[in-house]
């Protein structure tokens, strides 16, 4: 299929592995889905410590289920990316481990306190879900199918995240202040989740032309703000003065003043070149090393006995 035909036919779930897709399409889709898959892994790693640090058994259980979900989403997405025939799953996992694989800006920052947790678990997950819901209509069918299952599961994540935020903002004054401070730190990063504004985006136009994306960065960011600014305010969070968020009465939507955001930081992170990037990527390596003994003992056990019926991982 030539590129012109792809652009003409572009629409929800229009292309499948059986179609002979041009290299430009396969490469663009691989880049996009691999980024998405890497982000699921790195998001899981960022939240993993809070299984241990959760303040109650309910939160602990929910967090462990959630982290498990995220790693599962990565598995689905690597399969969808692999179906384009550009890179194998092993190649993509190696790239991530080496520090060459790219992933979402928000997952390059350390998360240290429980007050920060809803910034990821509510706002970033809410942003992710907002974007993912539109990707159910991507033109690459295996990607859309992965989104069906991901979106099915994510509703729990976002509500759980909001439940934590609600709890914190109904806590003591000190707790509320710490949560507000975390919100101020994370808010610009959350807005940058949606990437650069349309005029500065490198891949936006092509991805939309061939139907991989159905909404632009700007559209997604604006509609996210429409929903989540009132939500933040409902819980008593004060949206920081900068970046300036302006309400457009004519279009009934919020816009962000993009000049108020730190784009140098964003592009440094996009190259995995920030201090936090290395820390997060290495946390993955450290976790791998720390549980090496589990793999070894399982290997020994499997080698020694005839290995009985495998138990469900959950």
């Amino acid at each position: 299929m030539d590129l012109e035909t792809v652009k003409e036919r572009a629409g929800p779930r229009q292309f499948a592995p059986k179609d002979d897709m041009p290299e430009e399409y396969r490469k663009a889709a691989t880049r996009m889905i691999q980024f998405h898959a890497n982000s699921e892994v790195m998001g899981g790693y960022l939240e993993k410590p809070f299984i241990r640090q959760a303040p109650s058994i309910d939160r602990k259980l929910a967090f462990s289920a959630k982290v498990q979900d995220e790693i599962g989403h990565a598995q689905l997405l690597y399969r969808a990316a692999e179906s384009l025939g550009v890179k194998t799953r092993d190649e993509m996992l190696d790239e991530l481990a080496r520090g060459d694989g790219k992933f979402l800006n928000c997952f390059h920052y350390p998360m240290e306190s429980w007050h920060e947790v809803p910034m990821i678990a509510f706002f970033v997950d809410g942003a992710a879900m907002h974007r993912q819901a539109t990707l159910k209509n991507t033109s690459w069918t295996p990607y859309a199918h992965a989104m069906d299952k991901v979106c099915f599961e994510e509703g729990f994540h976002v509500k759980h995240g909001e439940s934590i935020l609600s709890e914190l903002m109904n806590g003591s004054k000190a707790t509320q202040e710490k949560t507000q401070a975390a919100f101020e730190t994370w808010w610009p990063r959350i807005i940058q989740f949606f990437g650069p504004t349309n005029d500065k985006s490198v891949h936006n136009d092509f991805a939309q032309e061939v139907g991989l994306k159905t909404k632009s960065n700007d559209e997604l960011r604006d509609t996210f703000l429409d929903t989540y600014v009132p939500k933040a305010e409902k819980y008593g969070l004060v949206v920081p003065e900068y970046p300036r968020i302006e309400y457009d009465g004519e279009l009934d939507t919020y816009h962000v003043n993009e000049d108020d955001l730190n784009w140098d930081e964003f592009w440094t992170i996009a190259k995995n070149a920030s201090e936090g990037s290395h820390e997060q990527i290495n946390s993955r390596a450290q976790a791998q090393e720390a549980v090496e003994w589990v793999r070894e003992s399982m290997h020994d056990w499997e080698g020694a006995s005839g290995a009985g019926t495998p138990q469900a991982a959950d």
Partner: protein
Amino acid sequence: MIWEVFRQDKPGAYHKHCGNVHAPDRELALQFAAVQHGRRMKTHSLWVVPHDEIGEIDADETSFGGTTDKTYRWATSYTDIEPAAPEVAESEAEQADVEKSLEADS
């Protein structure tokens, strides 16, 4: 040799199991599947898979989803939280449907 047949009714939809055919090889399996399973029902694509290549595990052998209470992983459990956005509400509705079917079976 038996081949399991999966039909997709339109581009982008899931291939769903719809039956099987006898055929000595893949080429004939595809032809027989097209005739037996693709000609009345709306069909965009068919997959054929050798029956022996399919693995199966069923509810007699394992307890799918485990045996402990896992209500914490359902959006529907967080009753004091209204869905933040339409896509969250949609996910919750899908989960509620599944929960209903699970309850109906138990």
